[in-house]
C-alpha cells in the first residue's frame, strides 16, 4: 500500500512540476510578447493625476531599496528615517560600492533585482543611460539644474537629458601632514627638494604617494602638459589624446619621479598601505580625495589640504567626478524613488553629508554656506576643482582604464620607452572600441 501511495504522490509532483515550469515561463513572458512591449509602463495613469495636483506623491505601499557605499551608511540611514517619517515609505540600504553599481545594474536592473535608487560616479552615466538603465530626472529637473553647479549638472546629463541628482563633487588634491610639512609645496620641484631630506625607502619613509595603479590619479601628470582622454571636450571617441606630445612629455616627467621620489613598483602602493603609512607619519604627502578625510581626521593627524603641486609652472589638472543618485529605470515605484533621490540631494542634505562625511556639495547655495567657506580643507579642494577636468562620460570610457593603466605600468615598472608604451595603450583602446 505504501508503495502505491508513493506512486500517486510522485505523479502528482510531476504534474505540478510541469505546471510550475509553465508558470515561471508565464511570468517572464510579459516581456517577450510583442503586444505587451508597446504599452507604457504601468504607473502611467497615477502620474497624470499627481501632476494635476502639482505634487508628486509616492505610490501606495511603496518601499525602496538604495545601493550605497559603506562610508555613506550613517548619512543615508539618517535621511531614510526622516523620509519614512515624512512620506511613510520605508527605505532599505544595501551596501554596493559606487564604482561597481552600473555593472551590477546592467544585469540586475532589467531582471527586476536592482535597487530603486543607485549612486555612481558620473563617468559611468554614458554606460548606464545608453543601456536605458536609469530614469531621467524629469519631475525635479528644473530645481536640480537651477540649484547645482552647472558643471556638476552637465556631468550627470547625457545626450542633453538630465538623469542624475548630484550628491557631491570630488577631485583629488594634496593631503599633507602638517607636522612633517609645515607649508604645502607649490611646485613639484619643491616636493623633490623636500624629499632629499625626508625620503628614506629603507625605513619606509616617503615624501609623496598616490595610487600608481589607478590611472585616475596618473592622469594629472599627462593632462597638465597637454594630454587628454578624448577630443572635443571628452566626447569624441575617435580622438584619443593619451599619446600626443603633451602626454608623452607628462609621462616622461612622471617616469622621472620614480628615481627621486618613489622607488617602488606600481602594484606595491595600495590604498590601505598608503593610508597606514600616512597615519603613522611615515608619509608626508598623499594625493587623495575627500573620501579619505574621515579616516585621517579620526586618526588625529594634523591634516592640511592644498591644491596639487604645479608641473613646469602650470597648475596641475586633476580628474574630477560628480557622485549622483539615479533612479533605476525598472523600479516599481518611480515616484517614491524620485522623491527620495531628491530628498537626498537637496541643499540641506548635501550640507549634512558634508558635516557627517566631508563630501563637497554640488549645490551652489550650500557652497556659500559659512561652514564650507570657513573650512580650509574644503576650500583647498574647491581650488583644485577649478583646475580639474570632469572624467569623460561617453560609454567608450570603460575601454580606456585597462590599457592605459598597463601602459603606465610598462613605463614605471618596466622602464619601457614612454612614447612606445603610450602608443601601444592607445592602439589597445582603439581596438577595444572598434570591437564594440
Amino acid at each position, binding site marked *: 500500500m505504501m508503495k502505491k501511495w508513493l506512486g500517486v504522490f510522485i505523479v502528482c509532483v510531476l504534474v505540478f512540476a510541469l505546471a510550475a515550469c509553465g508558470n515561471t515561463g508565464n511570468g517572464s513572458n510579459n516581456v517577450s*510578447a510583442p503586444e505587451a512591449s508597446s504599452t*507604457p509602463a504601468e504607473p502611467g495613469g497615477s*502620474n497624470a493625476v499627481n*501632476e494635476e495636483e502639482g505634487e508628486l506623491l509616492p505610490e501606495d505601499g511603496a518601499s525602496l531599496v538604495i545601493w550605497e557605499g559603506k562610508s555613506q551608511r550613517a548619512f543615508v540611514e539618517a535621511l531614510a528615517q526622516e523620509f519614512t517619517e515624512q512620506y511613510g515609505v520605508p527605505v532599505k540600504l544595501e551596501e554596493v560600492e559606487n564604482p561597481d553599481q552600473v555593472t551590477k545594474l546592467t544585469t540586475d536592473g*532589467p531582471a527586476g533585482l536592482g535597487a530603486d535608487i543607485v549612486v555612481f560616479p558620473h563617468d559611468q552615466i554614458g554606460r548606464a543611460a545608453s543601456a536605458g538603465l536609469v530614469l531621467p530626472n524629469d519631475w525635479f529637473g528644473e530645481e536640480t539644474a537651477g540649484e547645482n553647479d552647472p558643471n556638476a549638472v552637465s556631468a550627470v546629463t547625457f545626450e542633453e537629458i538630465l538623469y542624475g541628482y548630484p550628491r557631491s563633487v570630488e577631485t583629488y588634491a594634496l593631503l599633507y601632514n602638517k607636522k612633517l610639512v609645515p607649508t604645502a609645496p607649490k611646485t613639484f620641484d619643491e616636493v623633490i627638494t623636500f624629499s632629499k631630506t625626508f625620503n628614506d625607502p629603507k625605513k619606509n619613509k616617503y615624501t609623496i604617494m598616490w595610487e600608481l595603479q589607478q590611472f585616475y590619479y596618473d592622469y594629472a601628470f599627462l593632462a597638465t602638459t597637454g594630454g587628454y582622454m578624448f577630443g572635443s571636450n571628452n566626447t569624441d571617441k575617435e580622438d584619443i589624446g593619451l599619446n600626443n606630445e603633451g602626454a608623452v612629455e607628462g609621462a616622461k616627467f612622471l617616469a622621472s619621479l620614480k628615481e627621486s621620489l618613489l622607488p617602488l613598483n606600481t*602594484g*606595491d602602493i595600495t590604498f590601505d598601505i598608503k593610508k597606514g603609512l600616512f597615519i603613522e607619519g611615515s608619509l608626508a604627502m598623499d594625493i587623495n580625495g575627500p573620501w579619505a578625510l574621515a579616516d585621517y581626521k579620526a586618526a588625529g593627524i594634523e591634516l592640511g589640504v592644498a591644491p596639487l603641486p604645479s608641473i613646469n609652472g602650470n597648475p596641475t589638472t586633476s580628474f574630477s567626478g560628480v557622485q549622483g543618485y539615479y533612479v533605476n*529605470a525598472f523600479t516599481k515605484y518611480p515616484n517614491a524613488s524620485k522623491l527620495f533621490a531628491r530628498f537626498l540631494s537637496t541643499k540641506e542634505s548635501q550640507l549634512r553629508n558634508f558635516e557627517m562625511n566631508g563630501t563637497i556639495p554640488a549645490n551652489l547655495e550650500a557652497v556659500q554656506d559659512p561652514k564650507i567657506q570657513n573650512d580650509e580643507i574644503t576650500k583647498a579642494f574647491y581650488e583644485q576643482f577649478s583646475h580639474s577636468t570632469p572624467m569623460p562620460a561617453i560609454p567608450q570610457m570603460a575601454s580606456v582604464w585597462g590599457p592605459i593603466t598597463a601602459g603606465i605600468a610598462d613605463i614605471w615598472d618596466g622602464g619601457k620607452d614612454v612614447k612606445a608604451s603610450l602608443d601601444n595603450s592607445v592602439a589597445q583602446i582603439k*581596438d577595444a572600441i572598434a570591437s564594440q
Partner: protein
Amino acid sequence: MKQHRTIAVLLSIVLQGLGQIYNRQWLKGILFMLLEVAGFIYIAPRLGGAIWGLVTLGEKTQKFVKVGKMAQMVKGDHSIFLILDGLILLFLVFVLLGVYAWNITDAYRSGKLRDELKPVRTFRHSYEHATTFYFPYFMLALPALGVLFFTIMPIVFTVMLAFTNYSAPDHIPPAKLVDWVGFKTFTDLVKMKSWSHTFVGVLIWTIIWAVLATVTTYFGGILVALLIEQKGIRFKKLWRTIFIIPYAIPQLISLLVMKNLFNGQFGPINQYLGYFGLGGLPWLTDPFWAKVTVITVNMWIGIPVSMVLILGILTSIPRDLYEAADVDGASTLQKFRIITMPFILFSTMPILIMQFAGNINNFNVIFLLTGGNPAKGDYQFAGATDLLITWLYKLTLDNNKYNVASAVGIIIFLIVAIFSIWNFRRSKSFKEEDMIQ
C-alpha cells in the same frame, strides 16, 4: 491479428491518450489527454512569440516618452530575456514530445497484449507494476527535469551568447538590441590582433600554470608524506598538524594575507630579506616573479591536500611487500620506485586528473593573490598572471563583454573536457580494477 495495436497507435498519434482509452485504460488515457491539452493551451499561444524572439532577438528598443512633465518608459524587447523565454519554451516542448512518444509506445504495448488475447493492465495494476519495477525511474524523473531546466538550459543559454554580440556599450539591452553574429566572436578571438594575442598568451600561461600547480603540489605532498612516515621520525602527529594548517584556513583570508606578505616594499618577506642583507624581489609586480609567487603560494595551499591523501594510501600498502623486498635486498630507492610509487599513482590518478582540470580553473589563487596583475600593456583586459578563468571574470564583470567571455568559456570547457577524457581513458585505474592485489 495486429488490429488492436495498429488502431491504438494510430489513435494515440491523433490524440495523446486516445489509444489508452481504446485499450480501456480509462484513467491513464484521461491523464495523458489532460497533459496534452494543458500543454497545448500553454504552448500554442506562446510558441510563435518564442520562435520570433529566438530568431530576431527583438525588434523594438526601449525608449522614454514624455507624458506631461514625466518621462514614461516604453518597454522594448529585451534580447536576453527573449533567448531565455524561447529556450524555456523549447525545452518544455521537448519534454512534452517525450511524453507523446511514451504515450505511443504505451498504446502499442497494451494493444499488443490485447492482440495476444492477454488482459490489459488496470490502472491499479500499472501502478503496482511501475512502482515495483520502474520505481527508480519515477524517482529520477523529477531530478531529470531539474537537471534539464537548471543545468542543461543555462549551459545552452551561455553557449548561445557566444554567437551574439552581447557586449558593452553598444549591445546592452534593454535600450539596445543584441543580434546573432554567428562565429564572428570566435573568429575575432583568433583574427583580431589584440584579442588573439591576449588569448594565446593567457592560454599558454594557463596550461603552464595548470601543469606546474598540479605537479608541484602532488610531488610536494608525496615528499612530505614520505618524510613524515619515515621510521624514526618523532612527533608525527605534530608534523601532520602543522602541515595541514594552511589547508584549514579559508583561502579568502590566507591569500589576502599572502598578498600583503609579498608586497615588494612593505611586505615582511622582503623586509626579512633586507635584514639578511639581501635585496628584495618584486614578488607581485614583475611578470615573471608574480608567476613564481602564485605557484609557490599554491604549493603552500595544495600540498596539505596531497599529503593527507598520500598518508592514507601509505597505510594501505601491505607491509609484507616491503619485508619481501628487504629479504631480496632492495634499496630504499628501489622500494619506493617499485612498490610505493605504483600504489600511490594507481590510487590517486583519478584525483590527479581532477586536480589538473581544477587548476585550469583555479580562480581563487590568482584572483585573490594578484588579481591577474601585473598589468600587461599588450594584453586586452588581462594581466600577466591572468588565467583564462580570471580573464573571463574581468571580461564579464568589469567590462560587460559577455559574448567574448562566453566564447572563452566554451573554449575552456573544451580544453578541460578533452584533457579529462583523454586522461581518464588512458589511466589504468579505470581499466583494470584489480591491477594490484
